[in-house]
């Protein structure tokens, strides 16, 4: 009696769960439709005339409001030169992330392996830098970088290395601290110097952390607005966020059409990239969140 009742209820639970699973799927489909709607809206409005974008962002383009590819043409071909901004953003992000990964992983290795007062001080300064808001150093930093001429897309990565060192150092050090010395010692006995040991043994083991740091730094640098705005020579070099902000009010008008088109051009490759690299991005987020 007891056992049949239990059996029945388990079955009931199963059916119940089945039904509730469907309900969950439906509910979440609806929520997610709302969640992606803003992005869809950008796509829709990129085909509309700018006055129709502000007065009715929710309508589909119709005969009156549609401008076909004109907004894209404007974004790409005007003096705002969105494509060169895209190129600048890409250059800055790729170079900075590469530089950060190479330099901080090596620095972290040195800091963890060499016990000295200066490595300890440096390590704690790095931790400290993580809690300092950008506004604190924004003005002096813009002065220092200006004096040193660190103001073009090819050299600004050095600034990012400096300001972004904190998080990267922290994550690499954390990993290295847990790395047993034995492997390296074995390499030493085989006659490897520190450089060879680092590049052929340590770095390959660190690969997951390298990817995570790379993802986090990429998300930060690609989207950063204020640092490049204050540091770059903006009359020659603008990045994507700078241009999108610039479209709003420069040249006496707010170019909503061009803004929408540029956003589509910016977002599309990112979303595609995300769909492919999702696994790594989520891992990166998780390992980054362990800080704090």
């Amino acid at each position: 009696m007891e056992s049949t009742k239990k059996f029945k209820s388990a079955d009931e639970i199963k059916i119940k769960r089945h039904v509730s699973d469907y309900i969950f799927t439906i509910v979440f489909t609806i929520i997610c439709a709302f969640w992606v709607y803003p992005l869809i809206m950008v796509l829709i409005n990129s085909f509309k005339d700018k006055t129709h974008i502000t007065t009715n962002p929710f309508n589909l383009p119709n005969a009156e409001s549609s401008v076909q590819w004109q907004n894209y043409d404007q974004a790409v071909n005007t003096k705002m030169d969105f494509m060169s901004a895209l190129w600048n953003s890409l250059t800055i992000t790729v170079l900075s992330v590469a530089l950060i990964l190479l330099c901080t992983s090596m620095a972290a290795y040195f800091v963890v392996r060499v016990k000295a007062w200066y490595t300890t001080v440096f390590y704690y300064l790095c931790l400290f830098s993580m809690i300092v808001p950008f506004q604190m150093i924004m003005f002096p930093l813009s002065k220092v970088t200006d004096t040193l001429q660190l103001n073009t897309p090819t050299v600004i990565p050095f600034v990012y290395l400096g300001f972004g060192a904190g998080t990267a150092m922290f994550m690499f050090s954390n990993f290295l601290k847990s790395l047993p010395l034995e492997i390296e010692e074995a390499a030493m006995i085989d006659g490897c110097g520190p450089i060879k040991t680092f590049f052929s043994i340590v770095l390959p083991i660190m690969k997951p952390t390298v990817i995570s740091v790379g993802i986090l730094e990429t998300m930060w640098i690609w989207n950063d607005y204020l640092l490049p705005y204050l540091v770059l020579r903006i009359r020659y070099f603008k990045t994507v966020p700078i241009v999108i902000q610039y479209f709003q009010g420069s040249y006496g008008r707010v170019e909503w059409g061009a803004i929408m088109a540029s956003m589509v051009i910016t977002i599309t490759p990112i979303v595609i990239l995300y769909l492919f690299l999702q696994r790594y991005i989520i891992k990166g987020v998780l390992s980054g969140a362990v800080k704090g």
Partner: protein
Amino acid sequence: MKKRLALILASAMLVSSALCSLTACSGGGSNAKGHVYYLNFKPEQDQAWQDLAAAYTEETGVQVDVLTAAQGTYETTLASEIAKTDAPTLFQINGPVGFANWKDYCYDMTDAAVTKELTSDAFTVKDGGKIYGVAYVVETYGIICNTKLLQQAGHSLDEITNFETFKAVVEDIQANKAKNGFAAFTSAGMDSSSNWRFQTHLANLPIYYEYKADGIGKTDAIKGTYLDNYRAIWDLYINNATCDPGVLSTKTNDDAVAEFVNEQAVFYQNGTWAYGDVSAVGDENLQMIPIYIGAEGEENQGLCTGTENFWCVNSQAAEEDIQATLDFLEWVATSDKGTDALANAMNFVSPFKKAKEASNLFVKQDAAYTAAGKTPVDWCFATMPSEAWKDDVGSALTAYAAKQNDTSWEAVKTAFVDGWAKEVAKSKA
């Protein structure tokens, strides 16, 4: 230990020198000829300046860069750009208040060739007998009227002689909005691309009349004598327009231009610089009329004419860059290409001796008003204490438009009167 330190230092120097050589190429521009970097204030003329700069470079080989600040961010951009080694060599101030802020950067232009080209001393910013700013454009604003629509609505310009008569016409047009298919006013947008039309240009009128009544030219404490008039004209603008007063903050100048050109409204407050935007309506249908606010004696009032655009040369720039900049200015004011660009590409009336006659309809209309004995309204807004003051007044105007009652008008008053005193105090702090 010592050896190690020496090695560290040596390598540090090596790295930094490598960095320097790496960046040397980006230093650029500072050759014997000098170069010009113009931080332009007027977004409408950006392209014309870019073209003119290119023409100058082609002719002389001197590099001229033009950067235009986004609307409403000139001070911000100037503040961040001027702190750089590669600072603008040429920038602009809006008059004495701007000069007070930037005087450390204003080169003494008393003996500059471009200063000698001015038709009158009045077009300068002076301090202690020396000239630090040179005006390059004289402008006029008022209410641009589409006379064709006005006629369709059954009215004529002859009816409008002061605020009362203007109000009657406006309200009649608005009352028949459905029938006529157009409103009286374009949207009084308070987006940053448009808010200066009201927080600066329209606000000029109560200040002008107050100065006139008190016989002064500037003040540290505005009284707001004519604020009721300001309210009356603002009410008229916002309640007889194409859009609801609640949504002004999102309306841009583009919207207003579009409404005007598409014949959705009869009146549009703006100045000579907007001629290019509205010329599609046709010269025969365009007339700029004075902004009446109901002050005594306004029947004799003309358009608002003046300047808030003074060139300054950055005194802290390199010697050769200062010279290059002065040469460039002289070329702009005297050469055929330069004067042609000022008059035709930019539609400017420039106070230079060799200036060409601008092909600008509104400029001619302004001259006609003056010839008919009307008194032009001075541009007193150069005496407004700061950009922050304008923005605060503008915000208060927007808030009032959304909620039109005495309480929210008090906020405008506070921003106008108390804000003035506060901003003066801040600028002196």
